[in-house]
């Protein structure tokens, strides 16, 4: 079992405790730099003016929402394949952050769409698949919360995460197909002439989003571990130390 040293909840709990603050600090620093570049360094866009600056939030959020779903599917596959409980906990810990980024991407997209396209919502391929991704997150969260037996909830959530991950490319492809067939909305994504500073700003913001997600997921996974493992001796001691009730 040495191979799976960090799959032991106790080891992972303390590891997560050490890593979470580190990632939190990284996230804060990167976000500060990224936001500075976004708002003060990056030049005003010739066509869109200042409004475009929302992409520094919008694009990283959209990326992150997809990455997190894939990460959930990855942990789910590991959990089902190797039977490691911590993998399921990780998957569960990631879900709310993924849903948050997904919502953020939709929200900032709507805010961006209003001044540039003249509408909050368009049945554009990307927005539509983002919306469906949000539904997948909701489904996952609702299912794992509806099942009372924790073990069943973990595995059922893993199955739906994997099924969803298999479907994401299909959904994206079909929505794109549908969008090109129905030329109802005459909206084109206005091209921004991306300059280097913009790209750097976006990348730094994306890294900040990564660090934030990892930090938050680790904090969340710690409380999930404590909750699930509260029967065990070490968790009991830990909970007592934190002034809780086992």
């Amino acid at each position, binding site marked *: 079992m040495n191979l799976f040293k960090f799959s032991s909840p106790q080891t992972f709990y303390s590891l997560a405790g050490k890593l979470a603050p580190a990632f939190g600090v990284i996230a804060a620093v990167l976000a500060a730099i990224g936001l500075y570049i976004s708002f003060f360094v990056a030049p005003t866009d010739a066509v869109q003016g200042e409004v475009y600056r929302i992409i520094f939030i919008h694009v990283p959020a959209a990326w992150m929402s997809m990455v997190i779903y894939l990460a959930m599917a990855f942990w789910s596959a590991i959990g089902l394949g190797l039977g490691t409980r911590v993998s399921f906990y990780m998957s569960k810990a990631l879900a709310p952050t993924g849903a948050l980024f997904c919502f953020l991407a939709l929200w900032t997209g709507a805010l961006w769409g209003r001044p540039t396209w003249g509408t909050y919502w368009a049945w554009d391929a990307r927005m539509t698949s983002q919306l469906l991704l949000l539904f997948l997150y909701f489904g996952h969260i609702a299912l794992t919360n509806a099942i*009372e*037996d*924790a073990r069943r909830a973990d595995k059922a959530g893993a199955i739906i995460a994997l099924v969803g991950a298999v479907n994401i490319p299909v959904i994206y492809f079909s929505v794109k197909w549908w969008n090109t067939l129905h030329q109802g909305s005459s909206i084109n994504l206005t091209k921004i002439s991306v300059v280097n500073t913009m790209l750097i700003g976006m990348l730094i913001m994306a890294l900040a989003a990564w660090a934030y997600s990892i930090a938050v997921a680790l904090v969340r996974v710690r409380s999930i571990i404590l909750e699930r493992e*509260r*029967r065990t001796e070490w968790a*009991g001691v830990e909970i007592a130390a934190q002034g809780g009730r*086992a």
Partner: protein
Amino acid sequence: MQWQDPGTGLNSIAKAAPTARQKCNPDVVIFLTTKRLPDTPWRVVECTPMLEIHDLACLRGDRLLFRRLGLSVQAGELWRIAGANGVGKTSLLRLLCGLATPDEGEVRWQRKTIQQERESFHAALLYLGHASALNDLLTPLENLHFACAAAGDAVDTAACSAALTRIGLGQQLDLPTKVLSQGQRRRVGLARMLLATQRLLWILDEPFTALDVAAAAELAQVIAQHAKAGGMVIFTSHQDADFGMPVRTLDVGKFGGAFSA
């Protein structure tokens, strides 16, 4: 695998051979290997438990139902799982069948875990659970025939109706199951047992519930017969029944959870 009647001298060899942990049933000896023992004319072996439970633990939510539960069952044995309500008898039976995965420990069938040996184990298993596994819209005959076919037994309709007639449902063969009484539904399960004598291990959850005196006596007889023929029966029951043979008891309560969060 080969079954042999207890002949002279066999018992002593069988008793000498097994490892310390395993206790032998003196009535039946199973020959799994044909190693020749020194100083004896017998091509013997050891007395191998068919079903072994190791260090089993079962959690239900926050409650630890039992842990460190061990048991080894040999051919010809009759085991009654005892314990108060809610102590985990049904959970134990479901673990034994492989319907549930143990939180700790393992169940072995002929020395391999039942996960490894799923197909051969399920081929040798008859499980009758708390629910009757009958559909209200089908007739008892259709239900029984389906149960046999789905389990993989080649049993024809004639054999099914003969079994149902034998246990006293001859009049109800073509009625929908929903008009049957609770006891009559249980009798369909009894008919299933009659058709599954080739399955070595029977696991029965409360088989005596709702049966009248006559049916209960018949059930006890069927169970005892199965055990005497070299089968194994594990059952839960609150009633006492006369099997005409020794019944071993496992009290799940003794393995009860030492802690609950």
